[in-house]
């Protein structure tokens, strides 16, 4: 199946929420849509599902051409949708939920096995745990053999422990079904680990659409850089393709910034080492235990900028301690035009 979205706009009443969205999806590719709350993720899915009308632009699914003038009702679109709150039919047991509109039950049987629900065949939804509910919802959608899957934060109602394992269960199931999927999430880790491609949304606009690696390593904008993990920015002087920083000169790639002069470099916690050496160049503000490692915030003596650094959990620096910070990134750093803000956490 082939999904093509052209200049799609959608919203509620007067308010346009999604603007001028373009994307293509094919084969069994999984596209992860991430973005802060209210950026329009669910709106996009609702529009694709036909729950929300198209304001302008066009959606093509195989031979279907959906526009404002030609709205196709949900039941005609051959899509499967998985909801945040599962939306299981409370009056039907697991089997009946999964086989809601199916004549031959072989599909039901198949997905019940694939998702390990054998022992809950006859259970009523309200007796299931969150994880089980979500697997039933997935099985229900897949059993009806959609040609496109839409998942709206399928994991956000589940607890951390479950998220981690179920995320892979779902991915494998989608791949087995061999249908393309648009998967909406809040969680950048989820997006980057699961997705074949990741689309980062900001206020209804698609900021970047690329493989997780590219999005992370070559963010097309500050927003993307900040959204996909702890980013700090380090002021520097650009000349040719190197930059002078308080921590010495480093190779850079200019993303959007003047050819030379004042810029800011994107630095990630793993681009540094932190050591207790003779000549310190920074001061520790706080450090947080993360289990495997420890995240520290340090203030450069020169310039007084603050950056985040990740260190092994064996290093245990005390706040206020003088430390030595060095850049170890072997890859060139991304350069952006200078802005007021230091690093700040994504959204909220």
């Amino acid at each position, binding site marked *: 199946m082939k999904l093509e979205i052209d200049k799609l706009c959608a919203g509620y009443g007067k308010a346009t929420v999604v603007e001028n969205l373009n994307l293509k999806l094919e084969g069994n590719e999984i596209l992860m849509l991430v973005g802060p709350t209210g950026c329009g993720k669910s709106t996009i899915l609702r529009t694709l599902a036909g729950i929300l009308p198209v304001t302008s632009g066009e959606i093509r699914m195989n031979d279907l051409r959906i526009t404002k003038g030609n709205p196709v009702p949900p039941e005609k679109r051959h899509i499967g949708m998985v909801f945040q709150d599962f939306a299981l039919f*409370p009056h039907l047991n697991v089997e009946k939920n999964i086989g809601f509109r199916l004549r031959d039950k072989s599909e039901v049987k198949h997905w019940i096995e694939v998702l390990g629900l054998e022992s809950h065949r006859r259970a009523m939804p*309200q007796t299931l745990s969150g994880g089980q509910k979500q697997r039933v919802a997935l099985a229900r*959608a897949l059993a009806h053999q959609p040609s496109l899957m839409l998942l709206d934060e399928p994991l956000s109602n589940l607890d951390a422990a479950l998220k981690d394992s179920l995320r892979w269960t779902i991915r494998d199931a989608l791949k087995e079904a061999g249908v393309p999927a648009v998967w909406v999430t809040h969680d950048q880790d989820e997006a980057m680990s699961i997705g074949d491609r990741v689309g980062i949304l900001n206020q209804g606009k698609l900021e970047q659409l690329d493989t997780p690696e590219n999005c992370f390593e070559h963010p097309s904008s500050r927003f993307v850089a900040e959204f996909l993990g702890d980013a700090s920015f380090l002021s520097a002087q650009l000349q040719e393709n190197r930059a002078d920083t308080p921590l010495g000169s480093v190779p850079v790639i200019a993303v959007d910034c003047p050819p030379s002069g004042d810029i800011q470099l994107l630095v990630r916690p793993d681009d540094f080492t932190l050591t207790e050496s003779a000549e310190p160049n920074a001061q520790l503000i706080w450090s947080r235990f993360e289990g495997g490692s420890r995240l520290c915030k340090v203030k450069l003596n020169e310039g007084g900028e603050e950056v985040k650094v990740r260190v092994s959990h064996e290093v245990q620096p005390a706040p206020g301690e003088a430390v030595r910070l060095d850049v170890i990134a072997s890859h060139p750093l991304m350069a952006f035009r200078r802005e007021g803000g230091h690093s700040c956490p994504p959204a909220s």
Partner: protein
Amino acid sequence: MTRWLSRYPSYLLSAVIAVLALAPIAVLYYLAKGAEVYFSEETWRILKNTLLLTATTVVGSIVIGVPLAFLTAYCKLPLQRLWVIALATPLAMPSYLGAFTFYAAFGKGGELEKLIGLTLPRMEGLAGATVVMTLYSYPFVFLTTRAALRGLDGNIVNAARTLGLSLPGSLWRVVLPRVRNGIAAGSLLVALYTLSDFGTPAIMQLDTFTRAIFVEYNAFGLDRAALFSLQLIFLVVVVLVAEFCFRSVRENSGHCLSLQPSRAGVAFSLIPVAGIVALAIGLPLLIFGIWLKREGAGDFDQIIAWNSLKVSLIAAGVAVIVALPVAYAATIGKVGRFLERIVYLGYGVPGIVMGTALVYLGLRAEAEIYKASEENPEVTQFLEKWGLEEPFLYQTLALLVIAYVLRFLPLAVGTIRATLEKIDGNMVHAARTLGAGRSEVFLRVTMPLAMRGIVAGAALVFLETMRELPATLLLRPNEYETLTTEIWLVYEAGYFGRAAIPGLLLVLFSAIGLAIMLAGERRAEKLLLHQEES
């Protein structure tokens, strides 16, 4: 407009039903023509009495119904469900029966005095009418409030308590305000019931609109009766508007609060419960028992019971079917809510008035058919082909059922709307993405989830139909005796003993109806709270 209707077919249906509901009022208007309109101080006295009785009854019902709702909704009591059913059964007792037994039981030389020796104050006038009306209509408030309470998230009470507010304080400050809707809905039904009941005011000697209507009607002053009815309906409209303006925030339901009172607490809380039940159900049955013993039962033909059951079940069935589109429309828009209000009018129209109106409508329809069949033979052939012979509508079960439906539809609409509002919209979206069209979704998802309301609504209509008298007398087919007509027949000739068995059956059947209704409620709670469970 047409697109709009095609988008909301339920609007079209409920519009039709609303028009039907208005038809009787049109008839009243036709009948009232020519009656000299006088607003003597009589009229004002009647108005005053009517308003007073309505007000006191509503207040009384809230005072009794709400605490009992709290008790049965949140406290674990022994024989919980039995108590709930017992507390709702007064709905089954025709208020004129209750009124008459109270009238006969209390006061000097009353049955109770003969029984226990001490003289109790007489039951009459505003006080008496209030007591009786309250006892036989508080279950409306009780049931709606209880349903609302069980839908609330109990955690919020815990939150209030951890903030240092005592349990009663929490119930008062954070629970009561959130069940305003439920209380209001119940009070509305109480108010309408009070406005339209004529038995009690008549027996308690309180000159209300219904009594005036009754007197005029019996004195063959049909036009003046109709005039009074129109004035009464104006009051009904006022009440409806008042309730309409009274809406509080909707919220999503959660795990219901559950309290484990101490032994003493249980005993203490069961006292009022038992007291109410004894007064509302026990006393009448006792009095009937006495008369039964004194005068003998006479012979009772069980076909009568079967007749009552049959017609009540049909009415209940038809009512919920008709109620579905109206309730649905009410959940999707303002227009729907408005149409719903119109339907509510029916419950405020006294049975005798509704009956008279339908006699005219039925006859009119019948006459038209005859005229048509005389004018062109096709009609006659058609009628013969379908084996239709006179009477077509007038004095048939059909017309009787129509009357019941027009009067008691609001009961079904209210309960069904309440459950529809609770259904999660994504449920519908999910079904549609699975390829189900609108109608299939309605049949396979919405309907089953609304089943609780449907069952409850059907039960309420069933109860009301069981105890309805005036319209039944006017509209039933010849020879079609029901429990209430039987009771009327013997009671108003003074053979009280013979009213005992039908009275008992009435209460019995209705109790069964209530049991079914509450069973449905249980199941529905499980379904609708599925998020919170697990």
